[in-house]
């Protein structure tokens, strides 16, 4: 079962969820609608034709000002141990309402990856058991990996307690 066949079967099974497909350098992906992303992923995991039993990676891309359908794109890289193939599922997430259904119930590798995406992009995952920041401190505000966040940050790295050798505090 390779990329184009998976796309056809998905389109036949869930015609209103699947929006487009793409291919580059021999790799295929499918773009699904935000509201139905969880059902598509569940189908890909459970259906015996697909059996994608491993979520290899979950990440997001910020397409600010590039003419894409929405600003953010959440990308799921799936892998099937039975057929040894990779497949990619992409969901477009708008900037005004960055919420997507969480895949933590489907694969055990999802929780931390989703926390990281929330931390660095600000995309919220509905149904996540513990959506807190992962990489940055709790008090941090802002989502650094967004394209409009400056590389050197907003001054958080300069404000810590300073030790005075003369007085010892």
């Amino acid at each position: 079962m390779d990329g184009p066949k998976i796309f056809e079967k998905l389109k036949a099974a869930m015609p209103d969820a699947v929006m487009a497909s793409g291919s580059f350098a021999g790799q295929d992906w499918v773009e699904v609608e935000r509201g139905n992303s969880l059902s598509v992923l569940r189908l890909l995991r459970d259906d015996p034709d697909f059996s994608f039993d491993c979520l290899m990676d979950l990440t997001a891309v910020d397409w600010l000002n590039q003419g894409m359908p929405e600003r953010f794109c959440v990308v799921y890289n799936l892998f099937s141990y039975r057929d040894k193939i990779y497949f990619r599922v992409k969901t477009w997430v708008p900037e005004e309402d960055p919420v997507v259904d969480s895949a933590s119930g489907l694969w055990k590798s999802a929780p931390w990856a989703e926390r990281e995406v929330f931390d660095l992009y600000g995309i919220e995952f509905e149904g996540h058991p513990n959506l807190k920041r992962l990489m940055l401190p709790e008090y941090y505000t802002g989502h650094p990996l967004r394209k409009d966040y400056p590389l050197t940050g907003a001054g958080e790295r300069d404000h810590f307690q300073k030790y005075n050798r003369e007085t010892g505090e």
Partner: protein
Amino acid sequence: MEVEKELEGDLGSRRMIINFGPQHPATHGTLRNLIELDGEIVTKLTPEIGYLHSGFEKLAEYRTYNQVVTITDRMNYLSPLSNNVGFAMAVEEMMGLKITPRCAAIRVVLSELSRIADHVLSVGLQAMDLGAFSVMLWTFIEREKLYDIFEAVTGARLTTSYTRIGGVFRDVPPDFEEMCRTFMGKCSKTIDEIESVLNENRIFLDRTKGVGKISREDAISFGLTGPLLRSCGVPRDIRKDRPYLGYEGYEFDIVTAEEGDVYARYEVRVGEMRQALRIVDQALAKMPKGPVNVDDPRVALPAKDAFNKPQGGMEGLIYHFKNYMFGHGVCPPKGEIYSSTEAPNGELGWYIVSDGTQKPWRMRVRPPSLYNYQAFPRMTEGKLLSDMVAVLSSLNVIAGELDR
């Protein structure tokens, strides 16, 4: 924290919370674990990471593709050459470049040597955590010998930054094969010594057999890869399933074990070191002659004496100049790719999105340590506190890769 409020009125009980890390001799790197204990049994374990978050992915968006290679060294700092090779391969796949056979053979030799470096240190630290300190000193001597080889080839001991898109930095020195073969002879003796100390040691066996077990289904669902997955009995190795760099031409076995506990992981790592020595032997014997860099002016710099020659010199100068100008140089076409290699820790994946310019639009590293560490609570909850240390050292969590 919520869990502290729960215990407030409960001072006379056996339940307590211990903070393990981020500064602790037994955590390999900056990891923090909050352990809730009931006597000596771990009831709940909450890992907290991010103490080494260095913003690699944001930094990569501001560097050209060849400059990103220097960043990739600092992720898995026990085997930086694997990272370099993986990244260069991902971009080359995106551009559709085919590297020369000599370059492929050199990359294979160095990847396998860095696999030995990573596994030997992992086994050494695992032994040190359980009390066998001398094993760690022996493994460090092996690493020093490898550092000598890496320094002769790349110029640096640890942060090698050796590969470039389309080739490598420079060809290996003439005595490379001799250095490697001397190392290989001594390394197999050291591995034999380590096995003789640890394999039948009562203390080591008691502390590692049956400890930290994880089932095969859990391992697949958690996204575990590398020695952790193979120790559960899943024969998954990217070098066999989707061969790259000419691995289909080398003969080696996939080392698996059945139990999925700490001892199985140790066995798999030692077995992989021996297989890596086999591959290095074959690659050195087969090392083809020829150029190391691909002959493509878009990507590789022309030879240094190209612009000193009177004829054709001007062209070399122009290509050299253009390679660094904005809009030229290594510019993959617009698109995205997910490419992965079998790093010592597991599947190191690279998801690179290119917008056609010199700098990547998004570079995402799929760190094997993140997914390996996520399964840690599953392996330790309900077990003893001292087992936790043994399991943590068997996971080989490298904080640079975990937090990026």
